[in-house]
């Protein structure tokens, strides 16, 4: 079956702004959108650039806007989105080339929330104990693959890049609700800032965009409430 694909392209060496380009690709309904992009790149136009690696939704390389919504190209099949496609880079981060955006601001926000276990106590030579219930408390947010689908789907982030964004909050949540961690106070302090969790306006785009099915908004709400109760 023929699939027509419209891609928003940008080449910093020759373009001043982006332009749309059309391609027709022969594809099976079971193929991934990533496979179609590869067909274009490998057999038609080698200059098309996009990130990819694992090809099955675990590395977080290939978040892009497909038919108006953020998705991982390797996680959607042709039959789910039909045979007329519109593909654009994710929003709110500067476009470097074609579907590749500058991820540095995204990772900087991530690093701001101290995304690592903080516990200065001597742990001894065996594992720390943690009950299955305590472990379940933050299970959902451990799944994050830092693909930026959530942050770049957030209407607040589009207009204001200074917002740390849902992904950073998700990663703070991962530690704030880990019974072994002792740094929550500092993290909540950071997220109390003007550009922190309270900028979220519960638009829920992040939750629908997350390819790992993380309840992103719920995590943000957990953080808001936790800050409220600890203040």
């Amino acid at each position, binding site marked *: 079956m023929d699939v027509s694909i419209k891609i928003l392209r940008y080449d910093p060496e020759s373009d001043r702004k982006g332009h749309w380009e059309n391609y027709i690709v022969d594809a099976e309904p079971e193929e991934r959108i990533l496979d179609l992009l590869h067909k274009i790149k490998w057999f038609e136009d080698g200059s098309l650039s996009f990130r990819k690696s694992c090809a099955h939704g675990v590395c977080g390389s290939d978040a892009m806007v497909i038919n*108006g*919504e953020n998705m991982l190209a390797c996680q959607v099949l042709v039959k789910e989105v039909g045979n007329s496609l519109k593909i654009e880079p994710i929003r709110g981060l500067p476009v470097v080339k074609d579907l590749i955006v500058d991820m540095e601001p995204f990772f900087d926000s991530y690093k701001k929330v101290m995304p690592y276990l903080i516990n200065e106590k001597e742990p001894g030579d065996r594992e720390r104990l943690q009950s299955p219930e305590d472990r379940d408390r933050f299970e959902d947010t451990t799944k994050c693959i830092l693909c930026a689908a959530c942050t770049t789907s957030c209407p607040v982030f589009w207009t204001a890049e200074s917002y740390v964004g849902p992904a950073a909050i998700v990663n703070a949540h991962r530690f704030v609700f880990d019974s072994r961690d002792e740094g929550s106070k500092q993290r909540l302090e950071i997220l109390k800032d003007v550009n922190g969790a309270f900028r979220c306006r519960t638009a829920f785009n992040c*939750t629908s965009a997350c390819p790992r099915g993380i309840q992103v908004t719920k995590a943000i709400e957990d953080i*808001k*409430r936790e800050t409220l109760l600890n203040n």
Partner: protein
Amino acid sequence: MAYQKIVSTGSVYKGKTGMWLYVFHRVTGVGLFGYLLLHIISTALILLGPEIYEGAEAVYKNFYFRVAEIGLMAAVLGHAINGLRIITVDLWSKGSDYQKQLNFVSLFIFLVIFIPTTYKMTTSYFDLCLQKSSSGTTIVDCLIRPIPDWK
């Protein structure tokens, strides 16, 4: 070397209900604030005595403004009910699990209040118009002109 980077200007993002409710809440919030400023001025005119105050109020006495008032009602009710929904999502730990249901319930409550209100505001306009105008005034007159021969 640093190459120029651009901001993606693509098509409209196909967000779900939540995103459009966010837009709605923002638009109504800003709109209500604007209306509030107007309203403060027109109410404060009361200090200047009945003529001026009622002169200003007279501007409102037509059907177009009634439609605007119904819009205002919709904005206040919509903003208020959606605001309550947001508060629920924020403060109730299970709120975000029931996001879809809450959207639905909010819409339902909105309609339950808004429809009868609109009905009342519409019929009462025509009732008062006919009642307070000289005989021979028709509904159409009430519709297209400032209330004729207001008594």
